[in-house]
């Protein structure tokens, strides 16, 4: 049967008369609260409160497990036991697997805690299980809760105008927040952006300015008092360099349309599935890289490669970035594991401003190997472009932070 245009409209009219009820819609409290969270005047205070709740619960939960139990478990029981039972104290295998230790007056001295031992079975396991795991669990739990309630689309709408300034749109908040857990799913999530330009900008900004959950967890543990300043520098850098990239990268940055769902009561089964899926993915991708990264860093230290590079690059680190020469080693090791690099930095004597600069440099210096591999999967041209931008950013932004310190009289 074939209908002409008029007959089609008649059919539509008949169906809508039978199925659609017309009347004045009355707003419910849920609707009104939903509107408040997308209007800038009221939505921004709510977003500030949501982020506060997110980080407060993150810090309390991660601190509860890491400082309350795991530090003691690893430092008081696991490390001394391994130091005693693992054979070959002082040789290279012992240094890579258990404790690189140090030398005092020509004698080998064992480390007193898992953050300084740099062994695969000590620092590697402590960082993976004792620091990163609690941080990742609570991060993904909070994220799943916000998604299930229906807050994330509202945050996307709220930040749309701001993110357009950096060539992105509201949806860019999804890869950005995912990257705060782990940069790997963050890079994958850049596919929700429509154009090549947007995906390139997003991937580059993620790789440079968004610290992953592992790094945030270890920062919270070793430099809690400086966290605010470090994150502030990274946020400022995200927007400055995003703005510049938007101006110089050719291509389009289209508008986006989004259907904002009503607020809903979160479903435990949904949250459980999401959190489990993400943690399982994290275990598969990130944990092997933590342990492998730890082993490779250990081998490079044993071969003297990191010391050699550190000495060679020392003038740049001291003169341009204003950080001590000793930070060169951790900064090179950061390519393999940024979280371990932050732990290494905590063992170096520095002024607070030098510590802020060094940790910011670790964040912006290079994506970790796992993220690097994921970016390569997205396209080698994009990866090369991102690395070129990254090199420029590290030198300009690192130098700029040093300059700010000099002007403030704190560097």
């Amino acid at each position, binding site marked *: 049967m074939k209908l002409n245009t008029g007959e089609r409209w008649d059919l539509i009219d008949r169906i809508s008369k039978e199925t659609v009820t017309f009347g004045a819609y009355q*707003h419910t409290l849920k609707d009104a609260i939903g509107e408040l969270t997308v209007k800038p005047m009221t939505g921004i205070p709510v977003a500030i409160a949501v982020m*506060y709740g997110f980080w407060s619960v993150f810090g*309390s939960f991660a601190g509860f497990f890491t400082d309350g139990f795991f530090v003691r478990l690893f*430092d008081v029981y696991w490390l001394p036991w391994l130091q005693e039972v693992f054979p070959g104290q002082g040789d290279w295998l012992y240094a890579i697997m258990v404790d690189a230790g140090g030398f005092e007056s020509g004698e080998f001295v064992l480390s007193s805690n898992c953050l300084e031992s740099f062994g695969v079975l000590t620092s590697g396991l402590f960082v993976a299980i004792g620091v990163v795991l609690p941080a990742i669990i609570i991060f993904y739990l909070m994220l799943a809760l916000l998604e299930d309630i229906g807050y994330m689309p509202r945050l996307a709408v709220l930040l749309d105008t701001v993110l357009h300034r950096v060539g992105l749109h509201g949806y860019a908040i999804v890869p950005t927040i995912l990257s705060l857990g782990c940069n790997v799913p963050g890079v994958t999530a850049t596919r929700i952006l429509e154009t090549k330009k947007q995906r390139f900008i997003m991937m580059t900004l993620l790789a440079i300015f968004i610290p992953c959950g592992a790094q945030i967890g270890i920062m919270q543990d070793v430099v809690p008092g400086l966290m605010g300043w470090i994150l502030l520098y990274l946020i400022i850098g995200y927007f400055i360099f995003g703005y510049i990239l938007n101006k110089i990268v050719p291509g389009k940055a289209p508008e986006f349309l989004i259907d904002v769902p009503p607020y809903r009561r979160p479903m435990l089964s949904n949250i459980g599935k999401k959190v489990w899926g993400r943690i399982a993915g994290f275990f598969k991708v990130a944990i092997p890289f933590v342990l492998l990264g730890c082993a490779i860093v250990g081998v490079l230290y044993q071969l003297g490669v990191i010391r050699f590079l550190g000495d060679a690059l020392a003038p740049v680190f001291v003169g341009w970035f204003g950080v001590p020469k000793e930070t060169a080693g951790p900064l090179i090791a950061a390519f393999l594991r940024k979280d371990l690099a932050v732990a290494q930095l905590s063992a170096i004597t520095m002024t607070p401003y030098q510590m802020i600069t060094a940790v910011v440099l670790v964040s912006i210096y290079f994506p970790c190997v796992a993220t690097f591999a994921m970016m390569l999967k997205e396209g080698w041209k994009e990866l090369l472009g991102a690395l070129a931008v990254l090199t420029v950013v590290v030198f300009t932004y690192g130098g700029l932070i040093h300059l700010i310190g000099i002007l403030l009289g704190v560097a």
Partner: protein
Amino acid sequence: MAGQSSGGAVYFAILGVVTTAFGLADLLVTASGSEFAYGGILEMPGDIFRGGWGGIIVLFAGLFYLSGIRNFDDIHQFAKVVMGSILIWVVAGCDIFAMITESIPSWNEETGPWFNTLPDFIAAYAPPYAPAVLLLPFSLVVIYYVRKRASGEDGGGNSP
């Protein structure tokens, strides 16, 4: 009904003024870089996170209350009052969660028990409290008005 609504408006006006004052005080204390305690029950943290960031949210909560009290019966205005309470619940909830996580481990890095002793566990919940925790019981009054409005809606009445 109208009398009850105006009662609600007056209540939240007073709560709004107190909340705004607490928020401003939080910010001033943080800016001064020191802590402030009063009468063994109130303590304003001087750190940038709880005092500064938390103080801004308490201040916003007060402003939400104050902007929502005019035409209290209107659903959009009432939503602002509810949002003011939600902001207080976020800050107070985080403070209480932090108290819980700090009260359970012994925080002993060497030897001794893994968990806190009962007296220390209970002592962790003793005053002084942050402003948001003190405001929490007063902010819960909004639930009464939400329920009252919901029962009104069930009966067919609803403000446009």
